């Protein structure tokens, strides 16, 4: 970040002209002053609110953080990482979070793909359908949580009333430890599906229609068209959606917290990893172990994202 130059005839003659000349020339450029006044605040801001906290996180994870005298916090090495992995709810939360992510994929991806395929093929009303399917994305997540907690109340909720009216057995939904997690993911899917539908539909509409016309002339059926044209040409968009889904569901916090409070559902069945980090940090005020826990999450999300990119990209791209 030393010089902002036009670049066209920048570094080649720099040595012969002398450093001072280059600096003076740069300082005279209007581009330099515009860039300088814009980038410097960004750098300061990023340093304070992004880079510095990240560096601090790595440092804090290795000390027993003293709230009143942080400078003198004793170094404990990997102690915090060992301590958090021995937390009674650590493995529970890891298991729940992975389950949450897996359910998210199963519920979101096939359904969003199907809706997107239909939306891209339908001849009339596409915008209206899209606008209405997108409505849950706009509704506040906290309101969605409360809404479904009401509707799914096992005693007085409308869903069980509806089930008993049409003669089906009533279910426990959010109130039993076996069904709370999948039910919560269903709610998350209801809320988030429209987002992925819009992204996927936009990707599909980007595929030139000549390809489908040609395929039709060749006598292919919709199934073949989907796997031979849509999927390969959508690989980039699908990759984006899977990465977004993974990153989002591995960091889920709001929905389980509003549905059940910070203790996470019947029998801790929806106690997710981010609830553990939050509890450790702001309820039990153990900053060291909390940041250690969050770094585990960081490593995991990074690995998953890289794996997804490596696994999905080469196999489909044309």
């Amino acid at each position, binding site marked *: *970040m*030393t010089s*902002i*130059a036009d*670049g066209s005839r*920048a570094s080649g003659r720099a040595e012969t002209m002398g450093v001072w000349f280059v600096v003076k020339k740069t300082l005279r450029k209007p*581009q330099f002053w*515009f860039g300088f006044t814009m*980038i410097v605040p*960004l750098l300061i*801001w*990023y340093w304070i*609110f992004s*880079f510095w*906290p*990240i560096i601090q*996180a790595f440092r804090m994870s290795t000390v027993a953080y003293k709230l009143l005298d*942080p400078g003198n916090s004793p170094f404990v090495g990997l102690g915090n990482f060992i301590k958090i992995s021995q937390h009674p709810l650590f493995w529970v939360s890891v298991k729940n979070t992975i389950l949450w992510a897996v359910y998210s994929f199963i519920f979101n991806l096939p359904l969003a793909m199907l809706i997107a395929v*239909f939306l891209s093929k*339908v001849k009339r*009303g596409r*915008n209206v359908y*899209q*606008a209405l399917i*997108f409505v*849950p994305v*706009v*509704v*506040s997540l*906290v*309101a969605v949580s*409360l*809404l479904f*907690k*009401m*509707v799914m*109340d096992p005693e*007085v909720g409308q869903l069980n009333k*509806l089930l008993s009216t049409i003669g089906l057995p009533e279910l426990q939904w959010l109130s039993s430890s076996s069904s709370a997690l999948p039910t919560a993911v269903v709610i998350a899917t209801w809320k988030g599906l429209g*987002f992925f539908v*819009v*992204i996927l539909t*936009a*990707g599909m509409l980007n595929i030139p229609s000549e390809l489908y016309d040609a395929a039709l002339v060749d*006598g292919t059926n*919709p199934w073949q068209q989907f796997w031979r044209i849509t999927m390969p040409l959508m690989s980039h968009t699908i990759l984006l959606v899977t990465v977004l889904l993974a990153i989002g569901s591995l*960091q889920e916090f*709001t929905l389980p*917290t509003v549905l059940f*409070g910070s203790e996470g559902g019947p029998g801790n069945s929806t106690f997710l990893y*981010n609830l553990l980090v*939050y509890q450790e*940090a702001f309820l039990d005020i153990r*900053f060291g172990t909390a*940041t250690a*826990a*969050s770094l585990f*999450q960081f490593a995991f*999300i*990074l690995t998953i994202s890289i794996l997804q990119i490596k696994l999905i990209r080469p196999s489909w791209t044309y």
Partner: protein
Amino acid sequence: MAVVSKAGDARRQPPRRIEISQNVMHIFLLGMVVIAIFPFIWMVFASLKPFKELVESRALLPETWTLRNYEEILGRVNFYAAFRNSIVSAVSVTVVSVYTSSVMGYIFSKYRFVGKEILFTIVLSTMMVPFAVIMVPLYITIANSFGLADNLGGIIVTGFYTAFGIFLMRQFMESIPFELIDAARIDGASEWRIFFTLVLPMSMSPMSALAVFVFLVNWDSFLWPLIVLSSQDKQTLPLVLAGLRNLWWTRYEMWAAGSMLTVIPVMAIYSFASRYFIRGIAMTGLKA
């Protein structure tokens, strides 16, 4: 003549075209629309029912229409303050970060300087860091260095730059030709003038897309405000709404009324600007 040639075409084509009929697609999509908006419609009517009717009746429409839920909730909970806090924080974060994203996207796309690629990579890589990693150190920074604990400023200043926004705007600015900017320079326009009167007007479409995206995320933001804001009158709508759970443990008609108060403003905007919302999300998907 025309009829004959059409019939000739049909004979040459493969005997049976298997296509999903438009009707099947319409029925399926209508079903999805019902699933997407019916719970919401149910909530509208639930907020207008007395408690007893809400838990006992199976009917969608209320027998006794009442606005008492709204009266009671506005009397007990300071929704006005929450609404103001949400608007102030979401709007200021949106305005500032869309502006900074455009400037930075422009500079990263059209300027050349030492260390540009490295800087861009570093900025982007912060996107990969989960929020949980920085939330504790960030809270300490906000609370101790800036004295912004339990202050709306604490959730605003952290949102002034978004790595995602910079990335998105840079992707768009790549499509603006260098020649255009050079021509303006030759005509004697200052860098500021070029940016504000040439580049910005050309970027309205991705900027509005980004604005919608940033606004939605911040309007709905929960974890960070939960950490920063503690006193009642400082809290944003999602926090106040989540607090209803503890205030009225099973008074669902209150939950419904409170949810409606939170949802109505955004739905009102959405009802006439849905096109921009959808285009915004679609564009972020295509550019990312």
